[in-house]
């Protein structure tokens, strides 16, 4: 056992910290730190700066821009990014479709898509969930039918996050409706969002913002070359994609930053002297420490490249703490936290105006990306053998 980082690891952390705090525009970082939406341009600008420095897609194969880092290095990179309030590389590109293409795509597909994906020249969105296939993803109904070399896609996707910004979509479609198991007969298709027959309808969320969408497909023609890997093997790629990312499953760094912000607020409003508030912050800090250490343990034990089953613990507890910190900030705001629509003319500070929308928005954290019920099922089944 050893508490310290090695000299190399410390140097690496310093390098990351310096990069993120000096190379990413202050304005973008201030926006993230304040809890405002950074917008498409800020995300694109950040990812391009990182890509130029070789820091956008370290998890990819080296030939496509990856860095062959240790899991701990990847963890440090991810944490320092969050602690510096840097928007993380777009997950749809960096963690989802990129690794799938790099692992399963043809050489042609790789060459065509990987460089623009790493540089966010293509903004991808994910076409997985459907209205009747939420947690039960494999029961999806969107079909793709052969027409010569092409595929004709019909159906509907939903919960397509940031689809309104997307250039392309990666999509699970049913290509063999006769397959015996619902997991078989699914394929993984890529196509532009401006293909004829694609319609997007933004869904307003309970915080008043727009980040998910419904996407409708009506006879969308997709060239055969846009199929990733083999036909009817899409479920394997989806499973790879969903299990791929064990670094950053739990938003530790950003929650730490938010909790520090909450403590600052409590201090500046005199509430840190309230023993109940102080006790609550102590408890949250401790649970967050336990979570971060668990993430470090998982990272240390994932050298074989397979997702550690305890990733589910990270997702479960990580989202709970993320939500709890946002709730604390609403409480610190008290009656001010109602004033979500106030502008800078208001005497209500920005943090209080954003508090309740953020709290409500984060209810999604325990639903999307494998709900916490699914995580409990994985723990009970895979780890505990129940």
């Amino acid at each position, binding site marked *: 056992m050893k508490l310290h980082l090695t000299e190399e690891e410390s140097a690496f952390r310093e390098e990351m910290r310096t990069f993120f705090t000096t190379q990413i525009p202050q304005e973008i970082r201030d926006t993230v730190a304040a809890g405002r939406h950074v917008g498409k341009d800020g995300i694109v600008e950040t990812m391009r700066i990182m890509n130029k420095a070789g820091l956008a897609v370290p998890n990819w194969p080296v030939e496509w821009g990856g860095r062959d880092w240790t899991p701990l290095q990847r963890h440090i990179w991810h944490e320092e990014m969050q602690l510096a309030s840097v928007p993380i590389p777009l997950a749809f590109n960096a963690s989802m479709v990129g690794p799938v293409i790099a692992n399963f795509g043809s050489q042609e597909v790789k060459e065509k898509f990987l460089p623009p994906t790493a540089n966010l020249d293509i903004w991808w969105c994910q076409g997985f969930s459907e209205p009747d296939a939420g947690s039960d993803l494999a029961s999806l109904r969107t079909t793709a039918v052969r027409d010569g070399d092409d595929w004709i896609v019909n159906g509907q996707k939903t919960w397509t996050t940031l689809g309104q910004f997307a250039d392309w979509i990666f999509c699970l479609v049913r290509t063999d409706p006769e397959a015996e198991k619902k997991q078989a007969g699914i394929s993984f298709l890529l196509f532009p969002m401006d293909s004829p027959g694609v319609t997007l309808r933004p869904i*307003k969320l309970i915080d008043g913002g727009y980040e998910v969408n419904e996407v409708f497909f009506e006879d969308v023609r997709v060239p055969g070359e846009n199929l990733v890997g083999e036909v009817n093997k899409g479920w394997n790629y989806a499973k790879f994609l969903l299990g791929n990312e064990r670094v950053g499953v739990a938003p530790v760094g950003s929650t730490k930053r938010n909790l520090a912000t909450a403590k600052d607020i409590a201090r500046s409003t005199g509430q840190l002297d309230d023993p109940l508030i102080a006790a609550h912050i102590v408890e949250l800090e401790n649970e967050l420490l336990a979570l971060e250490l668990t993430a470090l343990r998982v990272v240390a034990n994932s050298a074989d490249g397979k997702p550690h089953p305890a990733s589910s613990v990270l997702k479960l507890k990580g989202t709970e703490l993320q939500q709890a910190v946002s709730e604390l900030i609403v409480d610190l705001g008290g009656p001010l936290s109602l004033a979500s629509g*106030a502008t800078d003319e208001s*005497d*209500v500070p920005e943090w209080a105006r954003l508090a*309740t929308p953020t709290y*409500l928005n984060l*209810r999604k954290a325990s639903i999307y990306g494998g709900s916490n*019920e699914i995580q409990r099922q994985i723990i009970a089944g895979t780890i505990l053998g129940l």
Partner: protein
Amino acid sequence: MDFTLDEEQTALRGAVRALLKGYDAEQRRSVVAEDPGFDEGMWKKLAEMGLLGLPFSEEDGGMGAGPVEVSIVAEEIGRMVAPEPFVEAIVLAGGLVAACGTAEQRAEILGAVASGASLPAFAYAEPHARWNVAAGGVTASQDGDSWTLTGVKEPVLNGARADVLIVSARTDAGIGLFVVDPSTVERTGYDTIDGGRAARIAFDKTAAAPLGEAGVDATEALATVIAAAQIAYSHEALGAMDVALTMTTAYLTTRKQFGVTLNRFQALTFRAADMYTSLELTRSIVTWATMVLQDNPRSADAVEAAARAKLQVSKAGRHIGKEAIQLHGGIGMTDEYAVGHYTARLTAIDHLLGDGREQIAHLSKTLGDHDVVEPLP
């Protein structure tokens, strides 16, 4: 001891429920999208039913009804998350006029309020004061018989729309309450998270008339009116929780995942059972608080009972509000589906007039004074 409504009260509930029936999620969405954030037509209808004058005495132009009747209206509003500001305008702002105003003020203000002609708002919150209703952000100055106010109140619920403002301010005597003509102040309105409206209101040597006798400390009167409003809010929250649970159980019995409806998943049904437990415990204590208030509206008992109700509402509202969304899954996150509106409103109510932690701090002060908490007098 009797927890049930009498016939007249049951009829009142039925009438209010029928009136609000049209308030589905879509209707609500279109209403809250436009200023003033509620339906002026509906407000008129509430006035026509006599609901806007419900708690005021008949001589003041009201119906002379008690806390139970008020609770019925609040609960029905909560069931529909109707955006009409019944508790804010009638129980709180109107309640202050009724409790503290001179006969003249009562007649002038409350008559117009009851008829729906005038919407009152109570400007009490201050940006740095949390739930302290007169922390010093607005001060009152006296010059002979004239008073002026200076400072900022925010957020003032319905402050931009209000036809008459009741304002709390520091005076030499303690807390003073004043009546202010809204046309004489600077008002900046905006939306609140629950679909309502609030405003920043700046007073700059603004002329103000003392509510009731001048120079009197209103601390005690305020406490009892706030208690009445806390209890009414608690009923509004109770109505919202009840429907949020009903929506959730309905969803669990219809939504299919993995080939079966969700109510086949025991972990989910047990959580719904826990929501029901929270709801029933809340119903008991909130109803009891109403009876305590009815028994003696101007008592320390009522203030304590209100704190107890609000504490339980804070806990149960968070529990039920969160679980209702979680058990719905993604659909619960959308503005198109109503359940999120309930959670938003529950969150707002929790943070009005003191959240759970604030009630704990309040109740801690008198914790050593009793042996057990006795519900029966």
